[in-house]
């Protein structure tokens, strides 16, 4: 494949209902490791992922593996190998867990093994309506749907939100493992997780990218305080 980044955004703008939400986002996701997208509530992280997925209309340029994907229909972007785990989980409440997973299958040989190994509960709850799952269980379904297929890039929006500390650990481990094969763009508020996983970081503030760099930059307490308003220096929480 090409030598450049796997995913590249340049000067992406998003306007929704009159408000200018992304104001020229430019950043790149390399073809390996986990790129963390950070920033406080409402800066436009989710909007950025949605713009990549073609779920929000945007202007500017978004290339994936060297090809322009801005303006391409969402399902075609996915078929090029982009998996997406949305922020609000978006499980299909009226479908069972099994149906939710089956719907997500694109490959001929979906990796149910990985999924059930990570979240054994999903096997037990195959027949349960996803709408009646607990918050954390829904999160598992959402993650599982993206992990079933072999993707070239995963966009994951706050995967550990609402998970118990133990499960946060496990999910982090799983993502780390998956990241060996598939690069990721990860939005995450749990900074210990970020520190553990991220190889690169992109920090946003009010609709713009204010910092990009390798994960090492998170080691600088002054920088993190300035960018994220919190010091990361402390030990594990």
């Amino acid at each position, binding site marked *: 494949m090409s030598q450049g980044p796997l995913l590249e955004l340049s000067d992406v703008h998003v306007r*929704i*209902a*009159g408000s200018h939400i992304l104001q020229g986002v430019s950043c790149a996701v390399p073809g390996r490791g986990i790129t963390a997208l950070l920033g406080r509530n409402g800066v436009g992280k989710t909007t950025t992922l949605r713009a990549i997925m073609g779920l929000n*209309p945007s202007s500017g340029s978004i290339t994936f593996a060297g090809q322009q994907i801005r303006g391409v229909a969402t399902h075609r972007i996915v078929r090029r190998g982009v998996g997406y785990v949305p922020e609000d989980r978006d499980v299909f409440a009226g479908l069972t867990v099994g149906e939710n997973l089956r719907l997500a299958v694109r490959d001929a040989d979906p990796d149910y093994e990985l999924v059930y190994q990570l979240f054994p509960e999903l096997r037990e709850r195959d027949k349960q309506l996803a709408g009646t799952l607990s918050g954390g269980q829904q999160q598992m379904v959402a993650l599982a749907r993206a992990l079933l297929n072999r993707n070239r890039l995963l966009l994951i929006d706050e995967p550990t939100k609402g998970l118990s500390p133990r499960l946060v650990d496990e999910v982090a481990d799983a993502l780390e493992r998956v990241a060996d094969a598939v690069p990721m763009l990860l939005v995450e508020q749990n900074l210990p997780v970020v520190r553990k996983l991220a190889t690169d970081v992109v920090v946003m503030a009010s609709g713009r990218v204010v910092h990009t760099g390798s994960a090492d930059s998170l080691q600088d307490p002054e920088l993190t305080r300035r960018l994220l308003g919190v010091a990361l220096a402390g030990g594990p929480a």
Partner: protein
Amino acid sequence: MPDENVLDDVTETPGNHSTVAGFDRGRVLRALPQLVVVVVLAVLPWCDISTGGILPANLSSPGSLHLLGLCLVFAALALSYDLLFGFTGLLSFGHALFFAAGAYLAEIAMAQFGVSLWAAAVIAVIAGLLLAVLVGAVSLRVGGIAFAMVTLAFAQAGSIIVNQDPGGLTGGELGKSLTFDKVPDALLGVVNTRHVYWVALLLLVVVYLLVTFATRSAPGRIWQAIRENERRVEVLGLSPYPFKLLVFVVGSVLATACGVVYLLLVGSANPSIITPDFTLSLLVMVVLGGSGNRWGAVIGGFLYSYLDQRLPAFAASDAIQSLPTVLRVPLSQPLFILGTLFVLVILFLPGGIVGTLQRARAGGDSRSLLRAALTERQPGREEKQ
């Protein structure tokens, strides 16, 4: 009002909140266009000007005033429907029942009990109130589509009964003519059409004021909350049921009052006003103008009934009849034009006429009108289910 502040000023729809300063002046200013409209409508019967075919004859002619009167009654009726549909999110398919109740019960009261028009109006409205409490209490036990269909069932039952002509009271499918000798002379005859027109205008003004007041009242705010998220309202400590019943009764009683004026204006109660199609046309009116918006309902009701009355004349006009067949056949069907117009409004003017105008005004120029129409159709996260 001393305790008004920005919090309260932001009411029905976010985004259209006015500036904070000069509240009282703002209030007057905001009421001004409405006042102007009412005054203009009120003096129409003195304006002997040609309408160039927009109306059947000169503006002050009985024919024109009769048509405008009907438009006013339907504007008021659409407004009463919007209270349920647009403001509270109650999709009732039975609103026609109450409108028809107003027309039929007033007529029956005059014909059977020999009471005067005014007494008959009072009787009809009180009976409409009782009917609304009964129908509402039963149908509101269910929600959503089930509610729509239970109200439809009630209206259908009403329609069947009216068509059965029990005891010769309703006149079956022929309807019943107004008992003219119970009506004051000043409201009778073609020469007095202007008086009836004023009654219709008064009706609209009263309904408008009541609806305005109701939506700003304490329960009015709860209605809007119910439209958004009923479960959440419950957890705030309020049972949605009495609120829904209240709005159902208020809307229905207003519809009953509209029915009485309709009887007076048209001179008969006929079963076309209790068909499911009729309720459906109310829905069309409200959406055409813009639901959840008082002006929207008024404009939609007015426009729909205007088109409904005038399109046959348009269809029969030489301009249409001389067209080639491909154009003539569809254009000579009034319902084809109305249906197509409605489809176009839904597709290209989301939020109806008033909603589009508001957005255009917010945007400023005419290009933004188009953009407003387009952006609405682009994916936004809030609208997914």
